């Protein structure tokens, strides 16, 4: 059930009144039922996978907690009787058992994700290697990929890791935990929430609050506008450009990068607006996933502002544990003695960066394009770290330059184009083709196609270009307003006529220029496939 389908709107129209009519203590149960109904529309088979993840992670977390509690009681009762060595031995024994449950939950659930998502990728690569040696070929297998599996698996594994670390006690109730795993607005494309942020709100009681619901509805409307008026329209042109690389090279590759950057932003942030908006109308706050990322001045800042919940997940559960692991600390010692303290201490951090970005790449999809994309992000971050002293010296020499608008604009434009160039790996069918197409920007550069009517052959008429352009300008305008705080709060302070005009204008735009007006079908969100 797509967010953009009539079925989904009907689903919400039934859920909302029910949610505020049922006794407050039953609201979470209704949400759980609604989430499973929503997920069942993706296919009955999907339900089995999410149920397995829910039950196994819930049970393993409870077992880990029981072990920890038993240890506390045991040591308290025998505080005087046990020697320090005996206490240590007992703790080590408990730690081993806890680790057993922890690893079982991790391996099972990452195993399910790996088998469903990466089996065919592994087969394709094995076949390629086998072909080199004249060996046989394996058949690809037909596997179900449950909707949002990467998102809910990561969210649930994050919970297991937190319980293992003792960050919070586990959820004792299986149905309550099941709601945390399956909360329907964020099942499709995140955000990847943390249990201690989300669960208290999901399980709390929510009286109807006109302002919160109204803010939520505004956010939903804004999301639909971005997705259906801007993203789905630009998708046509982007598909035309990347679908015919032999025709559309040179300046078209650059144009494709630019349009894809706008499309992806409108698509993904539009989807997240709908998600957060729906959650808000249910009285549930959800963490923001984007903070105007295209205004970032460098790649590190960009990744702190784009798909934030994914970035922090990889930071907290991959980057930090890998960086401070025993093997990495011993590499650190060796590299310091080999390369000196300055360079040596950076080696393990950079190694952990590459490992994290490899994981981020492969999380996005089972293809070399994503792996190379991830690794290139890591490489660019490392290069920018290494260049930091150069920039520092530059600013010491020219202290006034850094404060100018021109310099900040240069940084923003540089970061935007760098990220757009890396993102072209999302678009073309393989890595060599991507590199050769990006190369044509320099070897076959000509501005003529921009003015000879070629743009009108990309599937969009002049009217569509104008609508998409105005839509992008509106998104830019809203982003600029956001720098002064919540746009909805600013709107709230404006006269009623202005508020209604905005609401009607956006609704009109979605209905007329969206999926229903110009013969398009609302398409799947890009991040659904992850």
């Amino acid at each position, binding site marked *: 059930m797509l967010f953009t389908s009539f079925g989904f709107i009907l689903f919400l129209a039934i859920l909302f009144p029910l949610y505020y009519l049922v006794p407050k203590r039953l609201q979470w149960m209704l949400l759980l039922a609604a989430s499973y109904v929503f997920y069942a529309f993706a296919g009955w088979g999907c339900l089995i996978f999410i149920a397995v993840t829910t039950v196994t992670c819930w049970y393993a977390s409870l077992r880990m907690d029981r072990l920890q509690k038993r240890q506390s009681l045991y040591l308290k009762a025998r505080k005087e009787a046990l020697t320090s060595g005996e206490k240590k031995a007992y703790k080590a024994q408990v730690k081993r058992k806890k680790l057993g449950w922890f690893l079982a939950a991790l391996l099972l659930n990452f195993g399910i994700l790996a088998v469903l998502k990466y089996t065919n990728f592994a087969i394709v690569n094995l076949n390629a290697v086998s072909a080199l040696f004249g060996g046989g070929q394996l058949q690809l297998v037909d596997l179900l990929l449950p909707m949002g599996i990467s998102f809910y698996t990561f969210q649930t594994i994050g919970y297991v890791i937190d319980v293992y670390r003792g960050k919070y006690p586990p959820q004792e109730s299986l149905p309550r935990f099941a709601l945390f795993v399956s909360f329907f607005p964020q099942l499709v494309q995140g955000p990847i929430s943390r249990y201690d942020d989300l669960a208290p709100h999901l399980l709390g009681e929510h009286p109807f609050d006109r302002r919160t619901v109204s803010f939520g509805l505004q956010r939903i409307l804004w999301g639909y506008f971005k997705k259906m008026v801007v993203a789905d329209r630009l998708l046509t042109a982007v598909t035309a450009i990347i679908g015919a690389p032999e025709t559309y090279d040179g300046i078209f590759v650059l144009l494709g990068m630019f349009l894809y950057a706008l499309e992806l932003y409108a698509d993904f942030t539009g989807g997240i607006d709908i998600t957060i908006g729906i959650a808000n109308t249910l009285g549930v706050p959800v963490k923001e996933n984007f903070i105007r990322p295209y205004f970032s001045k460098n790649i590190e800042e960009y990744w702190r502002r784009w798909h934030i919940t994914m970035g922090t997940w990889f*930071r907290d559960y991959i980057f*930090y544990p890998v960086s*401070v692991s025993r093997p990495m*600390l011993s590499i650190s010692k060796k590299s310091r003695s080999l390369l000196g303290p300055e360079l040596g201490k950076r080696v393990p951090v950079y190694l952990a960066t590459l490992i994290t970005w490899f994981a981020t790449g492969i999380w996005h999809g089972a293809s070399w394009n994503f792996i190379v994309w991830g690794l290139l992000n890591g490489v660019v971050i490392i290069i920018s770290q290494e260049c930091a002293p150069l920039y520092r010296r530059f600013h010491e020499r020219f202290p006034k330059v850094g404060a100018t608008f021109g310099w900040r604009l240069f940084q923003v434009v540089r970061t935007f184009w760098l990220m757009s160039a890396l993102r072209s790996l999302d678009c073309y069918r393989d890595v060599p083709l991507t590199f050769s197409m990006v190369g044509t920007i320099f070897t076959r550069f000509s501005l003529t196609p921009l003015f000879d009517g070629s743009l009108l052959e990309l599937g969009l008429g002049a009217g569509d270009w104008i609508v998409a352009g105005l839509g992008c300008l509106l998104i830019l305008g809203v982003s600029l307003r956001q720098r002064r705080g919540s746009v909805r709060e600013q709107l709230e302070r404006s006269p009623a006529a202005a508020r209604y005009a905005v609401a009607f204008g956006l609704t009109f735009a979605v209905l007329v220029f969206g999926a229903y007006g110009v013969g398009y079908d609302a398409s799947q969100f890009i991040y659904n496939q992850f």
Partner: protein
Amino acid sequence: MTFDELLEILSDLHPEVDFATETGLIDNKVLDSFDIVSIVTEISANFDVSIPAGEIVPENFNSAQALFELVERLSDED
């Protein structure tokens, strides 16, 4: 490890920051994830105290004092 030795590690990373008084090192984005890992590896290399990943949370890294208390606690546990 003394508090002054910790301040020295921190000041090496960001000489421009007054670590003795700053209490929002994470919240105010003074330290990024690279800085944090550098601090953890420095402490491990020089003072033989391992800071597990689960302890890398804002509350433990927002001020030099909080970080010092964390290191003291972890040393005691060892």
